[in-house]
């Protein structure tokens, strides 16, 4: 089960080609809200080609992860190493970091938002870069009326293009970047009003 999903994993590993091939062609981009000890954290995770990009409450964190066995993660954060074990008993989720245990809840705010329109859908909304990258296309101009879900910009990073969509129906109030610009994770790219 040791799947190379780590950053520094070589692209060719003799015994694991089939699996690394799988991971390399799988692309994931998610945002979770994670609650530990009553405190909520926002975690943006992107995986492509076996590498992870991670933002924790907006702050970029360098992460290298290997799933050693099901429910056992070997993590490197910077150069600190952790073995994290996932304990799932009767619906409860606990994560063990070394010998410390954390009661944890994971939810996906976007999927919730998709179902229940919230106050957030009113008023101006910022479009931010989910990861460091380059603006390869701008699909609208300032003042354009857009539908919810319409493409606004395309960011490229790690050989993948990410179409940034409008979270709501409205007008492009501001366009803060142009084609070819390099952006950092979290940069505001546009505002929809």
């Amino acid at each position: 089960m040791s799947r190379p999903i780590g950053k520094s994993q070589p692209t060719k590993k003799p015994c694991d080609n089939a699996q690394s091939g799988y991971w390399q062609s799988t692309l994931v981009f998610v945002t979770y809200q994670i609650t530990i000890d009553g405190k909520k954290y926002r975690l943006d995770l992107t995986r492509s080609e076996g590498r992870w990009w991670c933002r924790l409450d907006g702050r970029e964190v360098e992460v290298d992860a290997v799933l050693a066995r099901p429910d056992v993660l070997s993590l490197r954060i910077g150069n600190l190493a952790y073995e994290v074990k996932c304990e799932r008993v009767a619906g409860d989720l606990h994560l063990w970091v070394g010998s410390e245990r954390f009661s944890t809840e994971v939810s996906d705010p976007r999927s919730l938002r998709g179902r229940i329109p919230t106050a957030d859908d009113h008023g101006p909304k910022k479009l931010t870069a989910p990861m460091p990258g380059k603006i390869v296309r701008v699909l609208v101009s300032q003042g354009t009326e857009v539908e919810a879900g319409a493409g606004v910009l395309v960011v490229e990073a790690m050989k993948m293009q990410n179409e940034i969509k409008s979270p709501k129906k409205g007008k492009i109030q501001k366009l803060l970047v142009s084609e070819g610009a390099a952006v950092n994770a979290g940069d505001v790219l546009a505002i929809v009003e």
Partner: protein
Amino acid sequence: MFKKILIANRGEIAVRVIRACHEMGISAVAVYSDVDRASLHVRKADEAYPIGAAAASESYLNIQKILDVASRSGADAIHPGYGFLSENAKFARACSEAGVKFIGPTAATMEAMGSKTRARQAMERAGVAFVPGTSRGLESFEQAEQVASRIGYPVMLKAAAGGGGKGMRLVHAPGELKSALDGARSEAERSFGDSEVYIEKAIINPRHIEMQLLADEHGNTVYLGERECSLQRRHQKVIEEAPSPIVDADMRKKMGEVAVRVAQAAGYTNAGTVEFLVDEEKSFYFLEMNTRLQVEHPVTELITGLDLVHLQIRIAAGEVLPFTQGEILIRGHAIECRIYAEDPDNNYFPSPGKITLLLAPSGPGIRRDSGMYEGWSVPMDYDPLLAKLIGYGTTRDQAIGRLTRALNEYFVGGIKTNISLFRRILSDPDFRTAKLDTGFLDRMLTRKTPATPSDSRAVEVAVIAAGIFAVLGSSSAGAGERPLTSESTVGKQNVASNWKITAHKEAMR
């Protein structure tokens, strides 16, 4: 030597005895109840016989069924392990009548030592010190009053047939005596079918120290050093060590010689343990004798280098003890943790269920006697003891260091265990300095968990790991497990709409 031994037990102790049989070239016969077909002792045995329903009375406590298997399998001896029939004199007698050797003392000795009052009478005759009090059941409240005032309060009332704290009452003052006596009697009657209660001087927060003995059937009896068993929760041992930090060579010799005298007075054979209460002045008093192997026997094995189960089998086969008292070398320090399926967050209630992940420690100084395996479902029907983890070291500090390291490696997923309790005990300053008594654990547990200000870095790691586990979804989970969130797949589907894959050849390979 025996050709085939039936193990009338289950779980980790059955596995431990099967291993000893195999090490000695003896066939091992397992018995199992309906819920134990997939248990490790069945996997490891040479023969395995179903003996009935989950309830112990229908299977592991059913003398007739076990003797039937002994006869069908042609076993020439039976090892009872501990618990179940191990201290049942009737079973020992039935084995003897069926012509199969019971690996343990004789039925007569078990009967003599099984009653605490009869054992005290025997010790009185043998001139062994026991806690001041009566060695016969109390005949009247008046007698209780007289004895109590003679030996001085506080006193302890105890059921003669007792065990596990049942029928025990601590009495601080004369005014409490009457109701305590009535309560102890009725609880003893309910628990053991025997209302006999005796009185002892109460020793407050004593140490509980026991001496391991071996006696062959040719009159040779030796002691193998003591075990410190003061750490108990509700009168059940939780963590044991050898040697006791307060026992020096001189005290060991004195206690050992008293224990040998106890055994010889009882005509004892095979492995047995004499329990003592030790007060703050290190005076020790006979408490009772356990006529069987004990859960904590590995700590004695590690400090003496002997295998008690091998020796039990050799003694039962009629061999002479292969060493004298003077040849026994005690070296190093050993500590045992009893790993239970119980929930530390929920008052240590049992926690049966399926083990979805098992990371087991090993390495220098670590012994693991386990009855579990990954994928096994811990049945709800028996004692929650899953495994014993034992750490050995040159010194007590090294044993604690190794055991702490091993506990940090140990992980049982799918059920709850008390592994975290041991981490807490081993890091307790009083434990580190060996300030132990029978009240230690209850005091520690009533204190709040030291408000370890969660290392903020560890919290971040947990947050990030939780996210990664959620992305990996069910592929990262043990068999039969749910993914972390029902939305985690939504995350993956977003990929299709959110992302377009650039057709770089490298990316698609």
